Structure formats: C-alpha cells, structure tokens
C-alpha cells in the first residue's frame, strides 16, 4: 500500500462551474473529498445596509441584483412585503402582469440552470439551445420593462409599465414553442446514458435532512415534499391557476433535474391561463401614497422563487425608509448542505452536486 497524504485543493473563486465567485477549500485524499469548506462573501454588497437609507421604491433596483437570473421574483417579494404591511390591494391587471413576468422569469431561470448544468457536466450544445429560448424570454421581458435582466419592473401597489400592444399575444405564442423545445430537451439529454450516470444517486439526501437544512424549492421537492408556496400559501393570484407541483422521491441530482424540467411545464401552464384570463383593461398601479411609509411594526413574507423560498423581512418605524430590511435568500440557505454532500465524494462529482443545487452567487452573498 502506498502512503497517501491529505492535500488542500482550492476550487474557485474564479472557476466556470462555480457560477460566480464562490470558493471551495477541499481537503482531499487522492480523489476523494475528506472535507469541503465553502467560502462565500465575494459578492456581498451590503444590500440590507444600503436599504436602510433608501425609500422603498428605491430599493427595488437593488433586489434585481440579488438573484440576477430571476429578478422579477425579487422585485415581487419586496413589493409584496410592503403591500402586506400597508394592506394595499393590487389591481387585477397588475397582478396578471406580475404573474406573467414572474413565470417567464422562472422558465428563463430554469433554462439557464439546465444549460449551465449540462455544460458543467461536459455537454456544450444544450447551453446554446437553452440560451436561444431564454433570449426570447428576455426579449419579451425587455419589451415589458425596458431591461434585459435588471428589470426594476414592479412597484409597491402594481407594476411600472403596462404591457405593450400585442405583448400578451407574443407571450401566448411563445408557450407552444417552448413546449415543443422542451420535448427536444428531453430527447437530447434526459435519456442520455452518460448524463444519467453523472446524476443518478449523486448528491443524495433525505426528506428529513432537506427540511433540517432549511432547503426549499426544487431542492426540497426532489425528496418528495409536495410543497410550493404558490400552491400552499397562495399569494398574488396564484390560487386562480390550475397547475401541479412536481415532486420526485429520489433526493439526488437526477430528481432535482426532473423536478426543474417539470416546473418549466407547469409554469407554461400558468402562463397559458394567465394570458387567457388577462383583463382587457384596468389599472396597473393601485392608489398608493406618493411617499410610501410602511406602518410601524414588522413583517416577514415568503414566496416561491425558482430557487426556493425567498423571503423579505421589514421592520419599520413608520418612516419612508425601512428600519431593517432582510432578505431570506434561498441560494444562501440551500448551499449550506454542500459540505455534507461533498464528504466522501470524488472531485468529479463535486461539479455535478454543486450544479444541481442551483445557486446564484449574487443571492448567496446578498
């Protein structure tokens, strides 16, 4: 037997498969990971501190930069928190615009995940397909909000812009197209044996562990917990739509993959219904005071982002700026389980496991 020696290996912070600036310090024995220590904070911008000097509307652009792959849900969670405190009823048309924007964002977000995850695993072309479809969504959202990624679209009480002429029709046209492409994705990747070998049984955890580690979103639903805040604690107008909450029992990367792809389909269902029900006219902004002041007190709301449960806590002293603002960022919570998953795994699986968690570093670091 050869004598083996423990070695330290640094992964990141600049590494393509860490999806941003994320660093892992690995203690390895040969190819086996003995211990993994995540190092985060490279992208910490102090959003919560900055927010204490900003009015609520001014904070919205900052939320775009947390989960920059799905900024609409971030916009929403802040507005939703303030609306909850102030008891503002959002006009119906605005709610529909919000839901359509958020679900488009969810599809786009899952597409980015799908493309980059497969790229991590060595498949180059899926990324191109995924980004082709994502580009269409981004164009749609660009038409709606005037920005491709940092939308700054929602406002307390509604949305900033009404849908341009013919926009809803464009969204409706995109739905069948996306469904068709999704079939192609499955043909291309889902049954691929090499792919299956890289994901099946990898990064496995149980339902109890998932709950204990505060995982949410697809990371939780892959263990058989049928829980989706859109369904179980409906906010906005999600109770009007007929959609399913996809779950898998495997608890491994393969289960997470299946859940996310199924979620694209469910989002398309919601989009379809929202386009059908879209009110022909109406306000897009509730009657809110010019200067928004949340009442004295505190509120914590949580909604379902593509990455899991995103929450917003506001403590207000009745002024126009929040006294304390805190975001419950799903990527931050979801990443905690990583050291546990990596222990005893080979380095090759590290990329697969990390990729399957689906983190956005802007969100991890706040």
């Amino acid at each position, binding site marked *: 037997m050869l004598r083996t020696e423990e070695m330290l290996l640094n992964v990141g912070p600049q590494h393509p498969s860490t999806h941003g600036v994320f660093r892992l310090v690995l203690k390895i024995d040969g190819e086996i990971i003995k211990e993994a220590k995540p190092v*985060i*904070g490279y992208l*910490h911008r*102090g959003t*919560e*501190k900055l927010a204490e000097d900003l009015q609520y509307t001014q904070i919205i652009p900052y939320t775009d930069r947390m989960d920059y792959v799905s900024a609409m849900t971030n916009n929403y969670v802040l507005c939703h928190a303030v609306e*909850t*405190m102030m*008891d*503002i*009823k959002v006009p119906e048309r605005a709610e529909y615009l919000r839901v359509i924007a958020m679900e488009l964002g969810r599809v786009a977000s899952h597409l980015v995940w799908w493309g980059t995850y497969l790229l991590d695993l060595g498949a180059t072309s899926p990324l191109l397909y995924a980004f082709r479809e994502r580009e269409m969504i981004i164009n749609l959202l660009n038409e709606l909000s005037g920005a491709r990624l940092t939308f700054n679209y929602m406002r307390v009480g509604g949305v900033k812009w009404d849908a341009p*002429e*013919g926009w809803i*029709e464009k969204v409706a046209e995109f739905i069948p197209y996306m469904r068709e492409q999704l079939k192609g994705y499955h043909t291309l990747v889902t049954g691929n044996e090499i792919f299956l070998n890289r994901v099946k049984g990898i990064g496995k955890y149980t339902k109890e*562990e998932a*709950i*204990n*580690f*505060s*995982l949410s979103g697809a990371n939780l639903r892959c263990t058989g*917990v049928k*829980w989706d805040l859109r369904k*179980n604690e409906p906010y906005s107008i999600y109770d009007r739509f007929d959609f399913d909450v996809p779950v898998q029992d495997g608890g491994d990367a393969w289960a997470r993959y299946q859940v996310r792809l199924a979620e694209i389909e469910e989002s398309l269902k919601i989009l379809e219904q929202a386009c059908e029900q879209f009110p*022909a*006219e109406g306000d897009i902004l*509730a*009657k809110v005071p010019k200067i928004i*002041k949340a*009442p004295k*007190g*505190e*509120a*914590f*709301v*949580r909604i379902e982002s593509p990455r899991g*449960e995103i*929450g917003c*806590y506001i*403590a207000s002293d009745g002024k126009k700026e929040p*006294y*304390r603002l*805190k975001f*419950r960022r799903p990527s*931050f*919570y979801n*990443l*905690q*389980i990583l050291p546990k998953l990596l222990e005893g795994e080979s380095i090759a699986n590290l990329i697969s496991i990390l990729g399957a968690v689906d983190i956005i570093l802007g969100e991890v*670091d*706040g």
Partner: protein
Amino acid sequence: MSGEKDLEQQKKEAAAKAKAAALAKMKAKEQGEAKEESPAEDMDLAKQKAAAAAKAKAAALAKMKAKEQGEAKEESPAEDMDLAKQKAAAAAKAKAAALAKQKAKEQGEAKEESPAEDLDIAKQKAAAAAKAKAAAAAKAKAAAQAKQAAGAGDGDDDDEKAKAIAAAKAKAAAAAKAKAAAQAKQAGGAGGDDEKAKAIAAAKAKAAAAAKAKLAAGGAGADDEKAKAIAAAKAKAAAAAAAKAKAAGGKADAEPAEEKKPSVNQPYLDKYVKVINENLGSDVLEDYYINNLSKDVPTLIVKADYYYKLAEFLKYNEQLGFDYLSELHGTDYETHMEVYVHLFSYKNTQSVALKVKIDRNEPTIDSLQPLWEGANWPECEAYDLLGIKFKNHPNLHRIMLGEEWVGYPLRKDYEPYDVEV
C-alpha cells in the same frame, strides 16, 4: 391591432353607458330616489355620477334659494375640490345643518321653515346654503354610498376612500365651524343662539362620532386619525360609515368587522401558549401576539434564558413540531438586539415567529444550529454583520466580510473603518 381597436370601442361604449347612467341617476335623484342597482362596475364611474348628481342638486337648490333672497348665490365650493372631498364636504355641511336644525327646533325656534327674515343677509345665505347642501348631500351621500357599495371592487379602495372622506370631512367641518363663527358674529344676538345651538349640536355629534370614526378609519395614519378626531364633526364619518356598511352589506362593512374579530391564527397562538405554559412554565414567554402586519403570524417573544429551551420544545413537541427554520436574523434596535426566527411546521403547515431580546452591550445568545442545521449560516451572518455571538455554534465565523473586517455594519452606530483616516 384589431384587438386594440376593440378595446377602444369597448371603452367608448363603456363611457357612453356611464354617461347615460349618470343622466338617469340625476333625474332619479331629482325625484328623490336613491337608486341601488347601479350598473357601474368601477368606483370612478360611480363617483362621477354621484358627484354629478350632487352638484346638480346643490346647484338647483342653491339657485332656488338665491332667487328667494334675490341674490346671486356663491358658487359651490365643491367644484375645485376633488370628488371625494366634494362628497365629504357636502355631507359634512348637511350634517351640521341638520343637527343645528334639530337643536333649533328643540329650542322652539322654527327657523328653517321661514327664510329667516329677521336675520341679516349673511346669515340667511349661510342657512340657505346649509339647507341646500343638507338636502343635496343627504341624497348624494346615500346614492354615492349605495353605488360604491354596489360597485365596490375591493375592500381597500373602500378603506382608502373612507380615510379620504374622513380627512375631507375634517376640513369641511373646520370650514363649517369657521363660517358658523363668522356668521354668529355678524348675526349678533338673535343669530347667536342659533349658532350656539349649532355649536352644541356639533360638539355632541363629534363626541358620538369620534369613536365610530376611529373604528371606520382603521389603519389610517396618525395624521389621518388626528384629522378624524378633529373632524369628528363628522358625525358624518360615523353616519357615512354606517350608511355605507348598510348599503354595502359587503366589503365596506367586512373590513371593520374583520378588525374586530380575532385572527384565524388566534386559536393556534392560544394553543402554542397553552402547551408552552403547561410544559415549560408560565415565565418563559415575555409576550405573545398575532402580528397583523405579517399575515397574522403568531409571534412569541421569549426570555433570553429560555430561548434555546423553547426552540427545542417548539421543534420536538408533538403538538408543535416546527421542523423547518425558514429564517433567522438579528436586528439592532439601539436599546437592545433582537433575533428573529421564523419557524414552520410541514406537519401542521403552521408558522410561528420567535423573537428574543438580548443585551446590546454583550449580545450573546444560544445557537439554534444543534436543532436546525439550517440555522448555521444565518447565525454566522448575524454574527458577521451585527456582532451577535451564538453560544455552542460549531463554526461561528465572519461569513461575508472576513475576519479582518472592523466593526459590525448593520449596527446603527457603525462607522466604516478607514486606515487612512
């Protein structure tokens, strides 16, 4: 494109309908009928109609009076105010006038029937105007409220409107009072009694209305509330709210009612508190309440010494079973630090907020990491940004800023450290 045109057309049609309806309303009102089955779906239409009707009425009456007095009537002050104010103002004056009349009658002065020949002209005008408005406002109010109620899309608008009305009323009342005072001076002795009667009536009305007005106003801001209190004149606020509630039978009265009745989560809170008191003793909790601002989440404030014990209990007790830590963070309240924990039970699908106050000079509290692994990083974050130390945490470190960072940025007294300064 064609869809857009259809829209335009629909809008035009809707506008035409609204106009037609408004005309119909006006006519109906002139005949003294307060219609209920307004087809108007949206508030603005309803308001417009109501306002139009009210103005028409007021103008008509005012003209009549003016003729009697041979004087050109002052134009309605309502025109430049916004609709809500118009209504409110008209209502306020109507109410004041009505009350004054009652008082006057009680005192044996049958002023209102006669055009008040013995008073001076200013007074005549005032009285006439008040009467005209009283009549118009009463009708307008009834109609508007009926419409609002019928067409009400949502409770919030009602609420806002109620506030707006209350505020407007406050102003109207103040104005009315000022006028009354001025008139009283002008009118001299004879008028004085009348004015006094009015004042008394108004005062009484205020007292009665104040309580109601507050209730109706609900979550209005402090300013609004003050305005309301003053406005109390607003017997109207109360009357309006009541009328609305009656007419609406729906949203308008649902809201105040909701505030009175306990939250749907009250039974859960009671249960938590009961179980905790039974098992851990009654001195564990500092306070507990339903947080109405936060989707009615049951909130427990625990004494720092019992924080870990209670958290453990919340997680493992059969009846509570909060197996999921949704959120943990700290806040610097300057007088103390606070840790906020949001727990959720997948078994019972119930949430609870757990808060603990800790000493700001020595912010130390037990770590929840041994109970929920998910508390690991959030506690590191709270330590990093606020300097709260979590006892028994396996790896408490400055997760975002790094160990070299000076100070805790989320503290309110934080000054960025700069080597060059």
